[in-house]
């Protein structure tokens, strides 16, 4: 779907309403374009989609399983349901699982009031977490001259890993271990400040949806993220090629 000539225009139904879409669009893109609300955390416009947070699950008529809107391409005549009781329940539960995994203490978090996780919890009507908190023990890495990494707040969306690899081209970040033991690391799981490959560009910090990555020496109110540069950056780079 790279050459313009191959792109087709489809008509599909979202929550019963007809909408049009380009064949190179994902269900999520079309839903957002038409102002249907679908929660996401791992997705970020400008980065590759990995379908990992499972918040954007939607129903597609004729499909036995729920599908992540971020990685599902549109097709002609597709019928998408973006929300119903079941989807709302699953989204809430998934978000609760994220909250229970690490130590998300909003009241003392550097991202309080400008955090995507916190925002979604309110938006989805979560006022308490029913699954028990796991309270794992994690350290804070403040070795970098400009930035701080706090694993306690990390939700493993891997936006930092992807932006560093796909946009900055440095691949300082990756994920180590697996399952519930997984965590983001820099180079050989060494202090961030000692990672020679880090260009200190700060993209990872700005795409982090939560308080896991933040700027040093800034107050909570000042630690807002700016991820809007991403689509711009990808568009500029495409121009150059």
């Amino acid at each position: 779907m790279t050459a313009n000539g191959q792109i087709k225009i489809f008509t599909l139904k979202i929550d019963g309403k007809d909408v049009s879409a380009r064949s190179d669009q994902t269900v999520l893109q079309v839903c957002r374009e038409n102002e249907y609300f679908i929660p996401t955390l791992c997705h970020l416009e400008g980065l590759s989609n990995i379908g990992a947070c499972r918040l954007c699950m939607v129903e597609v008529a004729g499909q036995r399983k729920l599908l992540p809107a971020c990685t599902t391409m549109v097709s002609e005549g597709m019928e998408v349901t973006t929300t119903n009781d079941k989807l709302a329940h699953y989204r809430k539960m998934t978000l609760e699982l994220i909250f229970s995994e690490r130590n998300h203490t909003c009241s003392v978090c550097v991202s309080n009031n400008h955090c995507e996780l916190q925002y979604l919890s309110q938006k989805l009507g979560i006022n308490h977490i029913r699954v028990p908190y796991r309270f794992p023990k994690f350290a804070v890495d403040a070795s970098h001259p400009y930035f701080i990494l706090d694993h306690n707040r990390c939700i493993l969306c891997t936006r930092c890993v992807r932006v560093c690899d796909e946009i900055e081209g440095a691949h300082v970040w990756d994920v180590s271990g697996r399952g519930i033991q997984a965590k983001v690391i820099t180079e050989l799981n060494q202090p961030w400040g000692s990672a020679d490959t880090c260009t200190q560009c700060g993209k990872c910090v700005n795409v982090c949806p939560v308080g896991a990555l933040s700027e040093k020496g800034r107050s909570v109110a000042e630690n807002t993220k700016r991820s809007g540069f991403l689509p711009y950056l990808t568009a500029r780079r495409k121009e150059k090629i």
Partner: protein
Amino acid sequence: MKAKIATTWLDGCSGCHMSFLDIDERLLAIADRIELVYSPLVDNKVFPDYVDVTIVEGAVASVDDLAKIKKIRKHTKYLIALGDCAINANVPSMRNPIPVQEIINRAYVENAFIHDVMPKHPALPELLARVMPIHEVVPVDVFIPGCPPSNDTIFYAVAELLDGRIPDLTSKTRFGA
């Protein structure tokens, strides 16, 4: 008949109670509809046999907290978890990844300038291995997140309950608000 209201705190900073008091003169508006039967703010030291609404601030951190909340639940119709500590154990729970003895030792021996002794008095309640939100111990009817929830939020919640409705606070408050 006036609604019997109780308030209490477990492991918290009493900030939620301060916020509650910030309702200020609006308290007068509901004063004739409620009877404050038990609270840190009043003299009664025995929890009554029947309470319509108990508002609890703070997390469950000690054996005393545990016994207290179980007793409260038994004698309360609507139990309200007020504030993040009550709902997600918040700041008190930040000790959870570390073993209790290590924490106490750190606080009272290693970091003590004078009197570096472990506190040992029969009146001191034993700490639980981990601090828990209230709903992990007993069922909770209404959750009012926030650190602390604003006085407006609390007033709205109480007013709704007095009118016989379970308040919907989704748009009014959230964790860390």
